[in-house]
């Protein structure tokens, strides 16, 4: 493996991270907070380390699969470690594990927190915490690619390793232009939500925070009761719509913009499946809730749609304590944690397209029993899916379930109850955030042991980087020449 180019790219990534730590400084200045030194120190450390690595001279600039995997995995680890510094330096968090957990949860857009009372934190830290969602949503390396000059051949490997979904394609011939287009699209939608929330009466700072949480499908709030604290139908509706929008493949927006029509959405099988799943889930949950928890259909619909959108897009905002919902509704939410959003979106978990393909694959296998000689291709819309992609999707699904089972067993072993253990793993592996039981919407992950937190951090990164990128590094063959 070409480790020099890996280190140099990591250096560039850290320089970018140092730049992204500047907005919280501005926030600290505005609110006259003393966290400013904590941020400046973190910036200095990150920038120095980054500059050091970036100055490495590299002869061979080719990035292949291995380098791509290594850059992305180590990149995410380093970004999380350095991103935790402001929490530690400011004294807001004293435990290193807690700070790391919070940052990983931020960058992976999980939104699982260990902070019991969030409302006492300084604004600048709250801003940074949510800003990590925004950065991690579209991908911090994609940002680095967009900002930095072309790194040389093979940067597509980085994009492939970081962006979610079984098949990655570029929007334009060049990776850095594709990255720019993605970020511009992302920024435009972000601004739209900030404006809509502010117009509806949310304080500007709060609308920034909740927009970061929505667009990155993260879910960090600045209220202990999350979005429920505002108790506003308008905010709920706006956030619901934007959560669903953030779970859509972002290249669809670009295509719609380029072609000036919405045909791309209607042609996209994944998009249609995604909307159908949301619609069916909302109807079922509404029927289940109505008359039991809420008196009016409207109230049931309002909370059902917010919570369904929040869970399927793996955001994790809450308007109400869904842990006290009837079991059927909770079961639906639990299943949705495994479905996740669309490929190429900021959402996490297994992705609608994979679920779709798994079902198509199963259908083909059943068909094979009926017509043993039949030759069939699995198709998405009208394009057939390559067999390699199919088997990779099947293996991904097995990996996902295996990891889920293993970590659940591990948590149960430490005598956490089954529901809480399973929910904690599903919620971190799927980058959702709140689960059920002791990690439910009204509580935090602080009750878990330090080691469990680290394991869950690993789950979050595995989930965000879609398993293969990380797990390939754990195989000894990866490091052999």
């Amino acid at each position, binding site marked *: 493996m070409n480790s020099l180019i890996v280190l140099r790219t990591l250096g560039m990534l850290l320089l970018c991270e140092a730049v992204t730590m500047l907005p919280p400084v501005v926030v600290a200045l505005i609110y006259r907070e003393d966290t400013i030194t904590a941020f400046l120190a973190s910036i200095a450390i990150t920038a120095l380390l980054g500059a050091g690595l970036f100055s490495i001279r590299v002869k061979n600039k*080719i990035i*292949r*699969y291995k380098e791509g995997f290594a850059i992305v995995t180590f990149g995410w680890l380093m970004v999380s470690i350095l991103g935790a510094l402001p929490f530690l330096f400011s004294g807001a968090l004293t435990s290193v594990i807690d700070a790391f957990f919070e940052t990983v949860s931020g960058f992976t857009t999980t939104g699982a927190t260990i902070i019991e009372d969030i409302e006492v934190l300084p604004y600048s830290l709250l801003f940074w915490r949510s800003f990590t969602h925004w950065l991690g949503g579209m991908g911090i390396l994609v940002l680095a690619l967009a900002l930095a000059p*072309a790194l*040389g*051949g*093979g*940067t*597509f*490997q980085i994009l492939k390793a970081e962006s979610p*979904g*079984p*098949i990655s*394609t*570029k*929007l*334009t*011939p*060049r*990776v850095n*232009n*594709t990255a*720019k*287009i993605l970020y*511009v699209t992302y920024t435009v939608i972000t601004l739209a939500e900030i404006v809509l929330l502010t117009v509806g009466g949310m304080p500007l700072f709060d609308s920034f925070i909740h927009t970061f949480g929505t667009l990155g499908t993260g879910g960090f709030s600045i209220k202990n009761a999350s979005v429920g604290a505002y108790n506003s139908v308008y905010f709920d509706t706006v956030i619901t719509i934007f959560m669903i929008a953030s779970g859509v*493949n972002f*290249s*669809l927006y*670009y*295509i719609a*913009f*380029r072609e000036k029509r919405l045909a*791309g959405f209607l*042609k*996209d*099988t*994944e998009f249609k499946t995604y909307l159908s799943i949301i619609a069916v889930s909302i109807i079922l949950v509404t029927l289940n809730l109505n008359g039991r928890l809420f008196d009016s259909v409207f109230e049931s619909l309002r909370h059902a749609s917010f919570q369904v959108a929040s869970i399927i897009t793996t955001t994790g905002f809450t308007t109400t304590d869904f842990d006290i919902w009837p079991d059927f509704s909770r079961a639906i939410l639990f299943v949705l944690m495994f479905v996740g959003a*669309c*490929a*190429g979106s900021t959402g996490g978990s297994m992705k609608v*397209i994979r679920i779709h393909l798994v079902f198509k694959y199963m259908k083909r296998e059943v068909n094979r029993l009926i017509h043993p000689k039949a030759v069939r291709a699995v198709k*998405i*819309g009208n394009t057939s899916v*390559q067999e390699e992609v199919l088997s990779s999707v099947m293996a991904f699904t097995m990996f996902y379930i295996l990891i889920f089972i293993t970590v659940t067993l591990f948590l149960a072993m430490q005598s956490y109850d089954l529901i809480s253990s399973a929910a904690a793993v599903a919620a971190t592996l799927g980058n959702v955030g709140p689960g059920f039981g002791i990690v439910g919407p009204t509580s935090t992950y602080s009750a878990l042991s330090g080691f469990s937190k680290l394991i869950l951090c690993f789950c979050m990164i595995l989930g965000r980087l879609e398993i293969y990128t990380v797990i390939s590094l754990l195989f000894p063959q990866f490091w052999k020449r």
Partner: protein
Amino acid sequence: MRIVIVGAGKVGYQLVESLTKENHDLIVIDKEQEILDKINDNFDVLTRKGNGISSSLLKELGIEGWDLLIAVTDSDESNIVACITAKKIGVKTAIARVRNPEYVVELQFIRNNLGIDYIINPEYATANEIIRLLLNTHASYAADFAKGHVRMSEIIIEDSSNLAGKQIKDVELPGGVVITAIMRNGEAIIPNGFDYIMKDDTLYIMGEKSVVDSVAKTAGVRIINNRVRNVMIIGGGKIGFYLAKELERLEINVKLIEQDLERCRELAESLNNTLVLHGDGTDLTMLKAENVEGMDAFLAVTGFDEENLLVSVLAKQLGARKVIAKVSRSNYTSVLETIGIDNAVSPKLITASDILRIVRGGRIVSISLLIGGRAEVVEIIPQEDTPIINKPLKELKIPKSIIIGAILRNGKVIIPNGDSIIKSADRVIVFTLDSHIEKVTQLFSKKGGGFSIHELINSAKNAGDAASM
């Protein structure tokens, strides 16, 4: 520039390699996912599996308004149709590779009536290149630039050469000549004064034609008697056919050996004075019987690199005066000189340099790819407002691997030094390693660039493809 390449075979791949170095936006279309994956791993381009003649695919890729489509699939017809389709969709320029000799007669018609701007015929170009080498007085490679005023010549340093073992600063070169590069063990080196010239090196010298020739002479390069009378060609494929046809025209006696009897009949029908022989070109008795030792030149142009190389070595040992082999894979170029072959031509490199010349536009007069594509000689007429104009060369921070070899001004050759200034009507001959071609392009192109929101919106309007997942 925004360029679509249809067909990622040998030439397609070489083009991707050269064009990405110059910062063009590329889309590559091919039917084979495997080759596209290889391209994706190595270059920052957009690849798409599919058929390049499909208008819906081309439209979907949003290539309307793009600058260039190059069709280099292995089918002539596909290439032609792809170009026509692209032109109808709104691509500005189209280049098709067409190799069937029957179409060569129709080239004018195709160009004028089907709207294809350039037709590239690799075999025809290769045959022309071989003829040029054949009629060249040098034993080795030489190319002329600036309307024939400037010559670049290859000198192979033999034991007897008076240059061997000298430091470059001690070599007394007459005014008007520079050593641009040294090739040693297959590596290209841009020398400075302290480098030594060693035995078996290949020097590339550039300068005024007559001076270069005299230097070559004193350095021990054999100047061959220019009179070529008898030529033997092995391989009656397209290149062999074009060669025989052209040599006939030059009133040179040609013996052409071809293995396939049916092909021999075809050749005999379409050629007039060529002696077509049916037999195996590697057959020693046959070569001897046909008097290979008396040949002025021996051209091996079968479809197999290995066979060409082998039979060339054989012919050289038997006594053929000048031996030229066609070698498609550039990996072999580094071993050629060690096995005693005078020249090797690669259709792939010739085609690629022809296309590159078109891509780089009118400013560039000619391009030669050297040393297996690892170095280039480019002849450029610089325009106003480019960085290279009206500034002493020493102020330009030109990287070491770019050498401004010669300037032609008002019919006079100037060998520049640090104080020389390039003016807008000059012809400039630049030698560069391929890693710095982009820099050359920068020096000779107008200022501006960088990414802006405008560009994004434009690219949003026109460019690129997006997959739905």
